[in-house]
């Protein structure tokens, strides 16, 4: 057994650490993906919505007659038709209810008012135009800061007598919840005696995840068998099955939910939307399959938005730059319905990660959620719940504090980073960070970017600008983020009461191939490729002999789906543990075949050998065969394992990002010159896929920081809700990304992996925004809000006297 042979055998396995080429690609590059809209069933019909042009209005009358008279129209459904089924409202994942079809009033522009079903999508589109709705407009509320004023328009008349909601008392008809964490008294005391304090309103604008595939569902109710089959763009198919059972009254074993290939999720496809419900209702009513696909404008203006958090953050510090406290109050704008997809005990998600990477002794945060006449939500757009908001706030506050102290922002961070010896680190807001070597990562990043030289270059640029030699400003943005992912331990994480474990079930076939099914659901993250890598390392079966399946609730074990970077920390752990169970049984079989005690066996890449007698060996392939005909007495045949993994903790990936941006003061245009991203996600399963995730997440962060916003005018008309205006960068605007890494395994995870898909969005936005703001620091600028569009930057420059 020489080492070259070991290496060769490891390479053949394509296990953990290998840049395995993706299995999924073979069908995708040939146009043979199976997305929801690709499916066609016999007799299938199409549904689409009549939507409200008004943001807030009473529905006086709906006249379906012209639509129903159009040949090919099968049904026109309104709230009236859903009331007998008690389906006009559905529960949200945040303890609120959401209208499936508007009942008596509409609460946001483009809200669903009627569902038209027709033979094909062309007739459905014509029929939508023919439904006549009479509205009586009501005063509109779009400013979350005005939501709780006395005399503010009351939005949720359906809740008007409820003085408390799912998360406690409500202090105003437009108030949803107050949530807090930390020690208020100790924090206030720290601020009272602080040598230096800063306070700033840091807004994170409303944006939308905008995956390239919009939401869709295809429901088929088989009346004979009483079985519902529901295809859909679901990041969490099992949760959808349970919810569908609860609201439709169909027993869960009679519902099959299938998430086929999904064209990107980013959080947009976690929740349950009226379109899904109506396709199910339509199929039950008509007895044929009903497909609903959503247009882009509907997607951007009605499915779950992200962010819309307005955070007044404060830091207390010594004059030498040691932070002594953090305080924050947040106004959270949830739109017309709180459809936030959070674990139920966390109406503000995991916002309390906002002490970030810094050793802050005391902190207190308070979040007030409010209703406005905007689309309901929000979701975690490529992040763990509210973690981007938290990271953005702390990273901006650090820069603002650095400015006040006249200190370099990297130096201030260095002074306050949690040290390696402090792990596992208990934060002031109650989280136990698992592992990290922050100073090593910081140092590596600063050296790689040539930080000192950049600051020197910037100083020269400032001098040149003031002397009139140049009109370009330069900004350097540092971001050192810690995020909290892998929801999560069932003791504090549940979705509608179901603990946030995840699962893996493996069956090894006689000829040494295997199939594994999991409760997560990839939307592009490459699970078919990477879970097989984990199993290859754990079981010695080559990855290309392992089929990975997700998304069919009839066959996959129950899972909570994929979002918040939870697949690797939770699904990957279940996968690895199930693989170990396979290996354990195989070990017993090997002992039986080799006639030794199982303790006398050594595991060696893809088989067991007898200690001291390496020629006496059984490969996993041989053991698989033996499992079907020659097992020890008393043992069952077959080679299967199941693992349901309830994580003991979240995982805490972290990173150091540095962004260099040049700004044309005369137009406000900003160009990212360099972007360096160092990520630590613990054990790295497939470096190629990790790099791809970083590129994609940074590109989304770039879009958010530099241009994305779903805005509303005073009358509640949604702006930027099409690709004409919603900023999605093309290959031309998108910067070149430099990626790097350190590797600090998670001590509590079976393979030490933490998850990485969303880190770049969490760390990226602060890096871009800090760079932008940094360019103006020496000219007296303190904070300018995102998105950093050219007009806004120009306006800011003008305010500071830098542009005319």
């Amino acid at each position: 057994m020489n080492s070259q042979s070991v290496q060769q055998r490891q390479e053949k396995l394509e296990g953990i650490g290998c840049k395995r080429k993706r299995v999924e690609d073979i069908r995708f590059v040939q146009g043979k993906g199976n997305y929801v809209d690709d499916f066609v069933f016999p007799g299938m019909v199409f549904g689409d919505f009549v939507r409200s042009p008004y943001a807030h209005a009473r529905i006086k009358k709906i006249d379906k007659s012209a639509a129903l008279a159009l040949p090919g129209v099968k049904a026109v459904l309104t709230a009236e038709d859903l009331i007998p089924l008690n389906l006009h409202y559905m529960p949200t994942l945040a303890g609120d209810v959401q209208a499936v079809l508007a009942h008596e009033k509409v609460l946001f522009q483009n809200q669903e008012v009627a569902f038209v079903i027709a033979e094909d999508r062309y007739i459905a589109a014509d029929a939508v135009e023919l439904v006549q709705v009479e509205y009586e407009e009501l005063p509109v509320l779009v400013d979350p800061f005005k939501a709780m004023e006395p005399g503010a328009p009351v939005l949720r008349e359906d809740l008007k007598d409820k003085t408390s909601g799912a998360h406690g008392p409500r202090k105003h008809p437009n108030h949803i919840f107050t949530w807090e964490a930390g020690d208020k008294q100790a924090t206030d005391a720290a601020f009272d005696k602080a040598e230096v304090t800063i306070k700033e309103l840091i807004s994170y604008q409303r944006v939308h995840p905008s995956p390239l595939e919009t939401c869709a569902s295809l429901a088929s109710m088989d009346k004979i068998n009483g079985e519902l089959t529901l295809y859909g763009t679901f990041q969490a198919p099992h949760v959808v099955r349970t919810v569908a059972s609860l609201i439709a009254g169909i027993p869960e074993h009679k519902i099959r939910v299938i998430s086929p290939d999904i064209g990107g999720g980013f959080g947009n496809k976690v929740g349950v939307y009226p379109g899904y419900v109506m396709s199910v209702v339509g199929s039950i009513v008509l007895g044929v399959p009903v497909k609903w696909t959503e247009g882009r404008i509907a997607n951007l203006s009605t499915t779950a938005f992200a962010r819309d958090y307005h955070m007044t953050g404060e830091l207390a510090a010594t004059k030498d730059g040691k932070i002594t406290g953090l305080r924050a109050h947040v106004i959270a704008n949830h739109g017309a319905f709180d459809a936030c997809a959070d674990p139920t005990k966390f109406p503000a998600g995991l916002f309390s990660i906002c002490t970030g990477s810094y050793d802050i002794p005391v902190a207190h945060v308070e979040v007030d959620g409010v209703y406005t006449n905007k689309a309901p939500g929000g979701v975690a757009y490529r992040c763990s719940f509210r973690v981007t908001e938290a990271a953005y706030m702390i990273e901006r506050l650090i820069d603002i504090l650095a400015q006040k102290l006249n200190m370099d922002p990297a130096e201030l961070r260095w002074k306050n980073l949690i040290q390696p010896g402090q792990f596992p680190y208990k934060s002031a807001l109650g989280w136990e960070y698992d592992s990290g070597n922050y100073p090593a990562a910081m140092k590596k990043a600063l050296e790689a970017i040539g930080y000192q030289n950049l600051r020197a270059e910037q100083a020269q640029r400032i001098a040149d600008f003031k002397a009139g030699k140049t009109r370009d400003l330069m900004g350097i943005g540092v971001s050192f983020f810690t995020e909290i992912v892998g929801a999560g331990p069932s003791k504090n994480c549940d979705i509608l009461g179901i603990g946030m474990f995840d699962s893996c079930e493996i069956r090894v076939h006689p000829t040494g191939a295997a199939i594994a099914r999991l409760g997560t659901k990839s939307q592009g993250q490459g699970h078919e490729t990477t879970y097989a890598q984990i199993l290859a390392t754990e079981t010695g079966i080559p990855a290309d002999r392992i089929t990975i399946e997700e998304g069919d609730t009839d066959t996959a074990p129950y899972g909570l789906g994929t979002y918040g970077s939870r697949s690797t920390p939770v699904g990957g752990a279940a996968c690895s543990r199930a693989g170990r169970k396979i290996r354990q049984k195989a070990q017993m079989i090997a002992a039986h075949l080799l006639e030794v005690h199982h303790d006398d066996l050594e595991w060696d890449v893809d088989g067991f050998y007898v200690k001291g007698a390496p020629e006496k060996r059984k490969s996993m392939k041989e053991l698989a065969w033996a499992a079907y005909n020659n097992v020890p007495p008393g043992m069952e045949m077959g080679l299967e394992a199941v693992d349901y993994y309830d994580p003991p903790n979240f995982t805490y990936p972290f990173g150091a990002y540095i962004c260099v941006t040049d700004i044309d003061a005369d137009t406000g245009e900003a160009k990212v010159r360099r972007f360096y991203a160092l990520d630590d996600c613990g054990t790295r399963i497939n470096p190629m896929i990790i790099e791809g995730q970083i590129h994609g997440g940074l590109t989304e962060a770039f879009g958010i920081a530099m241009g994305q916003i779903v805005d509303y005018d005073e009358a509640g008309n949604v702006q930027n809700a099409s690709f004409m205006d919603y900023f999605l960068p093309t290959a031309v605007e998108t910067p070149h990304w430099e990626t790097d890494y350190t590797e600090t395994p998670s001590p509590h995870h079976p393979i030490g992996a933490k998850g990485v898909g969303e880190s770049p969005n969490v760390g990226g936005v602060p890096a871009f925004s800090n760079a932008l703001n940094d360019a103006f620091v020496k000219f007296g600028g303190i904070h300018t809000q995102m998105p950093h569009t050219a007009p806004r930057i120009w306006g800011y420059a003008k305010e500071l006297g830098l542009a005319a």
Partner: protein
Amino acid sequence: MIPARFDYHRPQSKRQALEMLGQVLGDGRILAGGHSLIPMMKLRIAAPAHLIDISRIGELKGIAIRGSDIEIGAMTTQHELIASDSLAEACPIIREAAKLIADPQVRYCGTLGGNIGNGDPGNDMPGLMQCLNATYVLESMKGVRVVPARSFYAGAYSTALKDGELLTKVRFTAPPKGHGYAYKKLKRKVGDYATAAAAVILQMADGKVSQASIALTNVADTPLYAKDASDRIAGTSLQSADIDAAVAAAEAIARPAADSRGSVEYRTKMAGVMVRRALMEAAGRSSATAGQSVSPDKKEHKAGGLFGWLKG
């Protein structure tokens, strides 16, 4: 996403197209490249009862260069304008501007006639045609008439084109060899309409501007031929004060809409910035001044801005 119903017609010749157009009048629309009209139809902002597809009528295509007289068929696509080396040699500003329109797919289909004919204030070619003092040939069953680009546009989607008329050709005289030119377009991203854009053609002689032509795009409900700015810069040697005055004259006529591209103030100022940069670039390209420092006390250290590399 789904347009309303219409009847599709595919005439085989220009004459047949004009006959059909004469029959449908206001109920019909010409389908050229379709990349302005079809998106509007999909949103049901436009719902013509008839579409007359002229994309395969050969006599409506082609670039003819006779000396300095240029005649371009309305159905010439942006892609074809860019690909024509002879056109690029005679009048390079056209290639430069066409490359900044939309994206590669749209440029394969989008036509010059469509871009100049529908009156969309966001389109790039109208301002360019005004800068070149082009004329448009309008044909119908009743005959032919010629309208200068500078008098063609009345308001948003409102032009001198009458019902039953088809814009068939564009004509202009190419500026003399060695002229300076630049099309400067500020936009939010590739493919966007202009936040503000300026087209400049300059002729230089003995260090002075002998002729200047400046036009602005998307800072009003029509393209704007900036006569005052052009007059102000003509005869000067492009000193700072001259450029400042031309910029001020351009800003004075700008009346942009406030939208996601920016406020009225911002877009007006950006029209001025684009004019300034286009003047500098055009002067630099003019063979009469190539290599020379044009304005001794110019403030900018580079004319192209951060995105100078985007120019063609």
